Structure formats: C-alpha cells, structure tokens
C-alpha cells in the first residue's frame, strides 16, 4: 500500500486551486481594468436576446426535466463507452460482454420511456 494514499491527488488539488484562483482573479481584473462607459444602447438586450417578459422564477413544464434526465443517462453512457473503446483490444470479449449488458440495459430503459410517451413533446 502506498505510504501516503493521497499523494496522487496532489496535482488535482493544485489544479482545483489554480482554477479557482484564476477564475476569481480574471473576473476581478476585468472589472478593475476594463473602461466603463455605459450608454443606453449598451444597456439594452444584446443581439439575439429578446426582451425579458415575466419573472424568472416561474414554473417550467415537467417535460424539460424528463429530457434533462434522459440526457444525463445517455451522456454518462458515452463517458463509459470512451475508455472502453480505447482499451477495446485489451479487454477482449469479457469487456465486450460487459459493455453489451450495460448498453442493453440502457436500450431497455430507452424502449420503456419511448413507449411510455416521455419522448413525445406535444402530449
């Protein structure tokens, strides 16, 4: 066992710290260094944006959440498939079988939500 099991995580911690510091520093730098000359034109909604109407905290249709959930499921599937594809030759038939079971489970789920009508936007 590694004498200090947390040692491999040091680069990650450094990255996390640097990322955080950089984000804060850059956003503050911009507000310090950037010249501010607001005009009426600049303050209006920009280009493709449209005038806001109503309150931001309104209720959204539940179908947005369903789509978001489904997206996450298949997104995670893709994340799993990438490393498997890279190591495909090494993992051989065992890996193939495991991945087939995994994908089949998701296909079953997809068939269920499809048939259930969760993918119909209109209804």
């Amino acid at each position: 066992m590694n004498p200090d099991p947390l040692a491999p995580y040091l680069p990650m911690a450094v990255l996390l710290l640097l990322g955080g510091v950089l984000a804060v520093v850059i956003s503050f730098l911009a507000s310090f260094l950037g010249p501010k000359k607001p005009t009426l034109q600049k303050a209006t909604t920009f280009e493709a944006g449209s005038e806001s109407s109503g309150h931001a905290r309104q209720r959204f249709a539940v179908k947005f959440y369903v789509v978001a959930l489904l997206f996450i499921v298949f997104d995670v599937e893709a994340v799993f498939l990438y490393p498997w594809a890279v190591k495909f030759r090494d993992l051989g038939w065992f890996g193939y079988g495991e991945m087939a079971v995994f994908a089949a489970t998701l296909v079953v789920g997809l068939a269920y939500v499809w048939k259930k009508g969760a993918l119909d936007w209109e209804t």
Partner: protein
Amino acid sequence: MTLPDVTFADFHPILPALILMLGGAVLLFAEVFLTPSAHHGPAHVSRAHQPIIALVFTAAAALVSGWLMFQPARAVFLGFAVLDPFSAFLSLTVCVGLGLSVLIAAGFLRHRKAERGEFYALMLFGAAGMSLLGVSNELVVLFINIEVLSVSTYALAAYLRRGPRPAEAAFKYFILGAFSSAVLLYGISLLYGATGTTQLSAMAPQMSAALAKTQGLVYLGLGLLLGGLAFKVAAVPFHMWTPDVYEGAPTPVTALMSAGVKAAAFAALVRVFLALGHNLDSHLLATLFAFLALATMVIGNLLAIPQRNVKRMLAYSSIAHAGYVLLGVASLFVSGGAPTGGVLGATPLATGGLTAALRQDAVRGILFYLLAYTVSAVGAFGVVSALERREEEDRGTAWDLDRFAGLVHRRPWWAVAMTAFMLSLGGIPPLVGFMGKLLIFKSAVDAGLVWLAVVGILASAAGAYYYLRVVVYMFMRPAPETGVLPERHGWTEAALLLSTAAVVVLGIAPGLISSWLSQAGKLFGQ
C-alpha cells in the same frame, strides 16, 4: 494489462438482486407493451396480473437466497462484495417483506383504482438494492445500493399524490434522505482519506495506522457514516422524519420501508462496524451504540404512547424496534476483542473462542429480530391498509383508533390477526416478537449490558400499553353506528393470513428455521 479475475461463481451472491431487477424490468415492459392505453377492457385483466408477476420473481429470489445460505462464505468481485450466510438471510428477510407488501399493495391499489405497473417494478428495484446492500463489502458499492433502495422508496412514497399529506411525506423523505446520503458519502470520503481504500477488507487492517496518524479523520468519518446509516434505520436522534413519512406514504410502501429498508440498513451497519470496529477502542463503540439504543428505545416508546393515529403509532413503534436492534448491535462491541487472524478469508469462524461465539449469537439475534419485526409490522400495516379509506385521508382520521372500534364484530378474523401482530410487536409470548426480544436481550446480558437490557425490558413493557390499546378498541369498544363495513380484499387477506401464520409458527417453533439461523450468524471475515 491484467483483466479482473471474475468468474460466474462471483455472480452467486447478487443472483437474488438480479432476479428482482429482471422482475422489475418485466413489469415495466408489461406495463407499456401489454397494457392498452384505454382505461377499460383488457387493461384491467393485464394489470391484475402484475402482482402475480412480482410475486413469482420475489419467490424465485427467496429460493435462491435460501440456497445461498448454505454456500461457503467467500469474497467475490475482487472483494467488492461477499457471499455469506448473513447476507443470504438478510436477502430472504427482504424477500419476505417484499412479498407480503406486494400482496397488501395488490388489494390496496385495486381499492383505489391506482393499479399501474411502475408500483411493483419500483418495489422490486428497491428490494434489489436492499439485497445488494447486504452483500456490499466496499463503501462506494454500499453507497450506490443505499441510493438504489432510497430512490425507489422516494418514488414509491410519492406514488399517490392525493392531498397535501402524501406530498409532504414524499418531499420530506426525499430532502432528508438526500441529506443523509450526503452525510454518509462525506464520511466515506474521510475514511478513504485516512486509509487510502474504500474496501472494508482492505480498510480494516489499515485502521490502527490511520488512527495513530489521523485520529480525528477516522473518528469523524466513522461518525458521519454512522449518522447516515442511523438515519436509514430511524434511530434517535435521526428519527424526526419517520412519523410524517410513514403516515403520508401509501400504506404498502410504509410496510416495505419499515421492513426492508430498515433490515438492509441494519445489515450494512453491522457489516461496516464489525469490519472496522476491531481496531477501534471497542469500549467507545459499545458506549456509542448503547446510548443510541437507549435513546431510541425510550423515546420511540414514549412518543408512541399518546398517538391515537394507529399508522403514526406504528411509525413510532418502528423507531422503538430499531432501538431494540441497536441494543443487539451494541452488545456486538462490548466483548469485541482483536481479530484472531487475517482479514481476507483466513479466519475460520469458530476459532475466536467465547467472544466470537457470543458475537455470532448477537448477529443471529439481530437477524431473527429483523425477520420477526418484518412479519409482524408488515402484517399490522396490512390491517391498517385494509381499514383505511381514501376519503378520510386528508382529515387525518383514516387511521384513528376509532376505526378499529368493534372490529371483532365486523371482521372477526382481521381483529384476531391484528391482535396477533400487536402482541408480537409488544413482545408477548408465545409470538415471534417475544422470541426476537428474548434473543436480543439475552445477547445484551451475555455481553454485560445488563442495565441496558433492563431499560429495554421496561421500555417494551411501556410499549405494551399502546399495542394493547388497539386490541382493547377492537374487542371491547362498540362499533360506530355509522361505520361502513370495510371492504374485503383477497390479496390483503392472503398477506394477513401468511403473516399471522409466520408470527404464530415462528413464535412457537423457532426451531423450524434454526438450521438457517445457526448459519446466519456467520459474517464473512468475522
């Protein structure tokens, strides 16, 4: 690269869970592909078959669990899971609770015309998580299985969203459950930081070194882990959610929660703390669990006494019963010495001498108690679900004691069954609850926790008051004149019959399962 050495024999301990998951998938597909969308005609026929499908898969999983009970204990999947009689017995208990809950749900849902396939599928998925929680030997696997069972029960608790109470219950359960999962996960991450592994078998030998180096980290991690699990078993002071959630959730779901979720969480608690507790100050662990048990037994029983709402009373009683089981857990650590051998498989089970034998007795007592509580409580919830009527739910009178008044004149056989459940929960001989309490209190006394056993006996004597009050109402109060005769549901009555039989037979002749029970005290690596 080297491939993980996984064979088909590794799949044995997760077979019950796989069967339950397959059953859940079949139910989902039956729901969307076989059921016509119209609300009449053949739809009703195919929906009536869903509990049968669920029961078939539950029975298959139970049979496999029974077979696993006699397999030699071993680690599988590179030590991520274990096969041992302990987990097999737990899986069997979960299947018993699940099967009875499915029967109750069949009558309950038909009465409310809410028969949809997802209900049973979610029950089966949740039970698969419970079964897997018993075999988990790695903290991340343990966490995932806790989530599997929790997410299913969150959805089930919200299944009938009629009125504010069920919605409140589901939301409360979800928010607090997610919070406790986070606490649990935080504890796991701290333990990983202290030991560099999440596998229990690998973590146990690291504990001494970790304690010497980073004592605070280990204790904080274990404390958070305990907190997360104590939430799931509803131990005081992590019990606040229980009455509201148990009351608001559909009654068959409450039955499953009180039986399966609790049993599985206790199994995880026992496995984790037995594995990691060796190198800790066992006095500290024993004291900790003893005070948890004390608080849970006393507060659970005292809070149950003023309840007129029977469903809520059963919720508080389930807290009290968690306290009795915690008493058994506490006695595990009183005499727990250092392990006698290697952690990965080398230790023969019986060589530890007296303490190991006592420890096995205590584990056996815990498991028997969980089974006893499962059959008694699920049966009691079955009677509650048969009596309640959805019109009164919002007013909170659906479960009032008055609904039980004179039940013996209206449905004599339900009254008899409910009496058996109440007496069993109260620990009155010769019913199964008495045998369970006997085993638990015996191991507590053996471990030297005499004062705590006395408190437990006093608390359960106080508990007899509120259990017997239900019996008094059923037999000695006149039925309300306006009372409508409760409808009969064949499915629910089957569940009542089976649980009554179990409560009586296991109480009179616990020897029937003694060959299983003597096995079940064996944990892998202990």
